[in-house]
């Protein structure tokens, strides 16, 4: 079974993240790039499925040159090879354009399953998986807390507000995972060394058949028109509990009319 896992490089959530002042896209120079945390769960799930069913795991990333760091990380976890969709024309693409570009890149690959994270920590749109399924015309098995493949059938537990739905489909399909699904592995020294030699194919938009006028800031259907730091919250009152902390909190709630 051949699996493509979608990996995005995002600014480290632990650092201060910024938008550029000219077009309000992500300021990638302002913070360290790391693998989108949820994508590590997607990689792990792809590796577990490969261990069970055989086949190959290919990493697909769309992003600027420095995204190779995240590609190497994915390869050192155990993925077999990678495709890096990189082109200046892609700069500033919104979530739907990203899904479109990824669908075109996937068109150049052979796969039974696409596995991705349910959300990226920077954009947090949570729409790429669904939009990708729409563009590809493939079954959408998103928000999976459990994935089972049996022959050509795939079954997931889809996380819902009330618990979960059991959802079935035929391969090929698009699966997004939530972080409950597994515990991502740490790369071993051996794998880190091997990863350096694994093939990373670079793909430009022309190679993927992506029309230049469909991607990038200028063609985006959405536009950020303003961005500013959040107004600081007025400093709160912090008290030390001296046997009356609960009562003081009750006073605050009373003052705010919650009791």
């Amino acid at each position, binding site marked *: 079974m051949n699996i493509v896992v979608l990996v995005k490089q995002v600014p480290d959530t632990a650092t201060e993240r910024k938008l550029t002042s000219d077009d309000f896209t992500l300021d990638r120079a302002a913070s360290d790039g790391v693998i989108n945390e949820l994508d590590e769960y997607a990689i792990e799930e792809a590796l577990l499925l490969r261990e069970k069913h055989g086949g190959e795991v290919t990493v697909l990333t769309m992003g600027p040159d420095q995204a190779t760091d995240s590609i190497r990380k994915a390869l050192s976890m155990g993925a077999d090879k990678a495709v890096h969709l990189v082109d200046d024309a892609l700069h500033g693409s919104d979530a739907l354009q990203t899904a479109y570009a990824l669908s075109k890149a996937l068109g150049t690959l052979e796969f039974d399953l696409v596995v991705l994270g349910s959300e990226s920590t920077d954009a947090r749109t949570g729409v790429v998986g669904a939009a990708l399924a729409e563009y590809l015309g493939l079954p959408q098995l998103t928000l999976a807390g459990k994935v089972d493949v049996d022959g050509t059938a795939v079954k997931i537990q889809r996380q819902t507000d009330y618990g979960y739905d059991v959802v079935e489909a035929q391969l090929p399909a698009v699966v997004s995972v939530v972080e409950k699904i597994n515990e991502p592995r740490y790369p071993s020294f051996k794998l880190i060394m091997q990863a350096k030699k694994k093939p990373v194919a670079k793909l430009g938009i022309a190679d993927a058949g992506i029309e230049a006028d469909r991607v990038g800031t200028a063609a985006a259907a959405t536009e950020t*028109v303003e961005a500013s730091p959040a107004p600081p919250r007025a400093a709160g009152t912090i008290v030390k509990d001296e046997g009356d902390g609960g009562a003081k909190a009750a006073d605050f709630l009373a003052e705010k009319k919650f009791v």
Partner: protein
Amino acid sequence: MAEVLVLVDHVDGEVKKVTTELLTAARRIGEPSAVWVGEASDSGTAKLAEYGAQKVYTAPAELNDYVVAPTAELLAKLARDTGAAAVLVSATAQNKEVAGRTAVKLGSGVLTDVVDVSADLVTDHSIFGGAMVTKAKVRSGAAVVAVRPNSVPAEPQAGEAAVQAVEVEVPEAAKGARVVERVAQEQGERPELTEAAIVVSGGRGVGSDDFTVVEKLADSLGAAVGASRAAVDAGWYPNQFQVGQTGKTVSPNLYIALGISGAIQHRAGMQTSKNIVAVNKDPEAPIFEIADFGVVGDLHTVAPQLTEEIGKRK
């Protein structure tokens, strides 16, 4: 005036509060039409009328037998047929997916995790765990907008709520992912997390799977109970109550954090709460940076005292 479609969230025939908030927002933009997947109940329709829905489009409940795609098909068809100015949905994980697919079908744009929307369809967002605020818009076509619950205060205004059944043809490609079973996990009597006006959450500081100290405080306030990921991962509280980046995003009037450090991923799910109260024994805990009121102390003594005081003052 152009129609604005509002996807109705309903459970057992009852319309959720977020839908009344979406109708209120829709009235700023145009004429709200509710879209109900399934048979609209009388009490539900009455509620939609109370918040200004002029029409209630209903579609067969069978659309829900498949994941997301048929509902997007329905919304896109209605948006095209009515020339709607916008489509509003609640920003739940599932509805964000519906929004994405609907926008692809319409060839328009999608804006998610919106905390406010203006008459001319400029949306407000709180990003990077609440560190920045942005404004955005869709450049052309019907904007598809996912609005966070508890963001726009619901205000009643009478509408016709004329029910109209619509037929929608669901293509085979939209039936690829079939729901074969629905498993409901314990919800209890408390209000639902994303809808609740007050949320009381417990974290690693609770110290064990005995969440009674959190639940008692919640019940004294008629609040929902939430949990940090550390508490969920430890198996102390069920998954569906997790608040944060990969859990639920809540925006209640009051959020009380007990024994939660306030990691950025937790804050991403609660930072837009109107009032934040924290109890933590570590004065350096980052949660205090965003707390309106904080108590440095042991939650196992502070929370019971607070619960008791609330009981006394009722």
